[in-house]
């Protein structure tokens, strides 16, 4: 199976984020990492390749720094990478990112495309589904298991409130992958070494520009949300904090 995995670089989970001066985006001087569900998507692609053979290709759109997520993927076992390199990709809306991906892979023939089910920065949760529609492929979202069948695949979709559902899908198809579908691997030293010689194709904004339209959704303002609930903050040394909490548990919450 030939599988494309879409990876996104996002600020690290614990990174302290600050607004930029325009109040329209964050200050970019933070540490980045691969979007968590995308890491699971890559792992799943590698496992499918190990079982059924084929090729794993990774793609990302973003400035030069985003190359890091491709390098890591190559070190973990992906065969080659595509980098849509331009800072402008960061501010495209979901349909335009999907259009850029579709344009970048128009000469390829994949059986499957994986994306994470949503990103930790925008959280739009739609790039994969849009890409499927643009390519004219079927899709399934929030996937927790994939099994190859004689024709197509059977996937396990996570539903709300603890329910699941199997769905049969013909190939080619797009799947959005849920965190926890598998156990992530680490890159090995040999892998990191080999990654240096793997192909990484760069595509500039101008090469996909004709596929992209104006953004249809526009972030007017980014801000720290106002608190609606009054949280009583408990301060002091740990022992004092513990005493105050126990007081509340006894007198207000009444569970002691």
């Amino acid at each position, binding site marked *: 199976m030939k599988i494309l995995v879409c990876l996104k670089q996002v*600020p690290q989970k614990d990174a*302290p984020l600050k*607004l930029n001066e325009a109040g329209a985006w*964050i200050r970019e001087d933070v540490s980045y990492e691969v979007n968590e569900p995308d890491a699971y998507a890559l792992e799943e692609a590698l496992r499918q390749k190990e079982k059924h053979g084929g090729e794993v290709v990774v793609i990302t759109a973003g400035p030069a720094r985003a190359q890091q997520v491709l390098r890591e993927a190559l070190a973990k076992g992906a065969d080659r990478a595509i980098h849509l390199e331009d800072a402008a990709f960061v501010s495209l*809306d*979901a*349909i335009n990112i*999907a259009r850029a991906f579709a344009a970048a892979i128009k000469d390829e023939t994949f059986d499957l495309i994986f994306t994470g089910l949503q990103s*930790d920065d925008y959280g*739009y*949760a739609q790039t994969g*589904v*849009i890409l*499927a*529609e643009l390519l004219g492929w*079927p*899709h*399934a*979202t*929030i996937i927790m298991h994939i099994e190859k069948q004689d024709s197509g695949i059977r996937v396990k979709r996570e*539903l*709300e409130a*603890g*329910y*699941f*559902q199997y*769905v*049969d*899908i*013909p190939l080619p198809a797009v799947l959005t992958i849920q*965190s*926890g579908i598998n156990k992530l691997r680490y890159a090995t030293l040999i892998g990191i070494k080999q990654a240096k010689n793997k192909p990484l194709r760069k595509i500039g904004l101008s090469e996909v520009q004709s596929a992209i339209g*104006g953004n*249809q*959704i526009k*972030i*007017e303002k*980014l*801000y*720290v*949300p106002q608190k609606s*609930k009054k*949280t009583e*903050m*408990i*301060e002091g040394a*740990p*022992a004092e*904090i*513990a*005493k105050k*909490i*126990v007081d*509340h548990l*006894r007198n*207000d*919450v*009444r*569970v*002691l």
Partner: protein
Amino acid sequence: MPETILVVAEQHAGKLNRVSWETVAGAQAIAAEMGWQVEAALAGNGIAAAAAELAGKKVGKVYAVESPALADYTPDGFAAALKQFITDKKPHLVLMPHTYQVRDFAPKLATSLGRCLIPDCIGYKKDGNRLLFTRQMFQGKFAADVSFAGEPPYFATFQNGAFRGDKAEAGSAPAPVETITAKVDAAAIRTKPHEWFKEAKQAVDLTQAEIIVSVGRGIKEQKNIDLAKQLADSLGGELAASRPICDSGWLPMDRQVGSSGQTVAPKLYLALGISGAIQRIVGMKGSRTIIAVNKDAEAPIFEIADYGVVGNLFDVVPALIEEVKKAKS
């Protein structure tokens, strides 16, 4: 003619998903402020009763978009039926609840009409003649006001809890229900869905617990879970966890709280090293008292906590265990 907001409600096996009321309430509020009108649609097969239930709310009209090919939900079927319907009715704004099902077909539907939807909104703002949608960004650390550019129809989805479903206004008389036969070619539906199921029966029923001590990724390592366990034991409560903890296998799945886990409402919910992502919060916001310990003062969990401690859980929890033991002896 005022502009129309179309609410696409959700049903499963003919039963209305209650979260649809929240979207109706949101649409009514927007309509009142903008001078627009609300209509509702429901797609499926054999959905007359659910459509009639929708018609009890203050909406101009309810459309039951029916076809035998819509009996089971598929993204191909639902997107095709709603695309026809929306092309025909030309609503200005289409609103839906941000459910797993809507996540599955709404981006496809919007794309098929050349549109990009604003997903997972928590509210709206009127800005002159413009309508802005508010949504969380960066896992709730920031909020953004987002506008639509280009031509209608516009599509947006609302996060679970964005509006109060019980505030959806009832109509003085039932709204007219029109049944529309969708032309969906069953052969063009490419995916074959199977029955819903649950995994093996859960061994732990967190819904009955009065006290829950819940750990998140701030616990750092599997061996530290024991610290939280000690606190839970000293309080006579149950141990629960966020999804990443269960994904890692540090605690079994049946201890997970959230949209894909259990929904709990104990007297006391103690959150240790949990950021407070929405998928988590929907599972525990009904708790009577929430106490959060998090080293990050900006963590979204403090938005819903009654008591908050900004600090290292590895300092606070041992002291708390001591103090609880003292209080109990």
